[in-house]
């Protein structure tokens, strides 16, 4: 019961902050839309490259990437808020007042999820409006959003672990850059078989490649790597949950 009280309080405050601060709210919605517009609009001819084989079309191909990206960055953006709470001294007061401190991490994660769901709705509406094709059934579509939600959870747990260790906004690049790099060394623009050179090897080893391919395959109604992708996503959530909770202990020890 105590853990839920703390989590709901932290989540409510975080969401209220986001909703009432346009400088925080707008970029987290606009950035995915920019990426979607630039990739799906500016690169649509890439689908004519010989060997490009994705039946629903390039808009759908890019939608899945941007959705996963928005999920990961939704978590990271919430992590910036945690760092700000430490800088302002609020997080220390929160640590003192909370009967169950694990609820703090849970609350931030809950806020990140709600925040991302809002972004995902906007992104989906825009994508459907500009002609995204969905060939997968309801279960496929649900599976793709569930996968993205797990990535969102992994993103906030990673970012909160960093924020609680550094306890400063200057740690922003440490939260952001690894996520950015791991996303962009996946098959962002073309399917894995069309990648050549160093990126082919890196993308093959990159776990997010399989998450992305599974998401795209579910939208196409032709599932591949789904069990593998969920295992990877759950593994990331488990690993980063430990990272985050150990970060919380460090923050407690720092006083």
């Amino acid at each position, binding site marked *: 019961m105590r853990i839920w009280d703390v989590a709901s309080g932290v989540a409510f405050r975080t969401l209220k902050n986001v909703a009432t601060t346009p400088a925080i709210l707008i970029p987290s919605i606009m950035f995915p839309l920019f990426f979607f517009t630039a990739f799906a609009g500016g690169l649509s001819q890439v689908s004519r490259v010989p060997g490009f084989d994705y039946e629903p079309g390039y808009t759908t191909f890019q939608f899945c990437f941007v959705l996963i990206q928005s999920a990961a960055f939704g978590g990271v953006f919430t992590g910036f808020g945690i760092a700000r709470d430490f800088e302002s001294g609020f997080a220390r007061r929160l640590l003192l007042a909370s009967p169950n401190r694990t609820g703090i991490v849970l609350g931030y994660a809950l806020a990140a999820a709600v925040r991302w769901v809002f972004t995902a709705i906007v992104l989906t509406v825009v994508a459907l409006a500009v002609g995204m094709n969905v060939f997968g059934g309801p279960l496929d579509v649900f599976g793709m959003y569930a996968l993205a939600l797990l990535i969102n959870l992994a993103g906030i747990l990673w970012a909160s672990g960093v924020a609680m260790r550094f306890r400063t906004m200057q740690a922003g690049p440490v939260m952001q850059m690894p996520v950015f790099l791991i996303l962009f060394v996946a098959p962002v623009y*073309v399917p894995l078989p069309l990648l050549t050179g160093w990126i082919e090897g890196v993308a093959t080893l990159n776990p997010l490649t399989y998450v992305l391919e599974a998401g795209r395959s579910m939208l196409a109604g032709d599932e591949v790597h789904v069990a593998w992708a969920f295992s990877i996503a759950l593994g990331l959530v488990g690993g980063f949950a430990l990272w985050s909770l150990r970060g919380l202990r460090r923050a407690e020890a720092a006083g």
Partner: protein
Amino acid sequence: MRLVASQVGALALRSVTRTARQPASAIPPILFPVSLMLVNAAGLDASTRLPGFPTDSFLAFALAVPFIQGALFSTMNAGTDLARDIQNGFLNRLALTSMRGSALLAGQLGGIVVLGLVQAVVYLVVGLAAGVDFASGPLGVLVLLAFAALVSIGFGALGCFLALRTGSGEAIQGLFPFLFVFLFLSSMNAPRDLIGVDWFRFVATINPVSYLIECVRSLIIVGWDVQAIALGFGFAGAIGLVSLALAAGALKERLART
């Protein structure tokens, strides 16, 4: 005249020193565009197989983008630095001296041009090291550096204008995504004639950033494309003139308020 020159020199030196002392300001404008270019070039290499694509190396095609992306960072740096001067009262103290407004702007922009040229040299070295052939030769490199300086002045002046209008570093940072829209909605990832979506091609055609990118791109992959170069310099000059006029007006207003 000599007095103004010494004021410009002192403020430019201060601007350069301040940037050099803040790795968080100096390093991302160099590293981020380069890493994005390398990743994009690898991921989009397959698009060089499209009929009509102007080169068989996507890296050569993409090398133009960091020059303009770096210039956008110049906007942020110039704006944030000047906003900090406003917030901490430095501008107010300067207003009590004999310093001329033009010297303040020129000094601030001098620092940005130095950073812009350092960035341009780094991008060139990375491109050459990665095997990009520079179609316009050594003279083209000089033209490219001159263009980089002009673009830095234009975007730097825009940053100064925004800082003088808002007086807030946070507001400048908040405007960053909106400046990036111009980059995203341009011909950064595909030649305009190969953009398949009509509305996107139209937006890219009326977006001046497309012409800035295409000027640099032509020097790298085509050679001496007079039209692309003239359009690039023309738009860069126009952005510079408009931004400088806006910044000068905003400075006059800001100094009158102090």
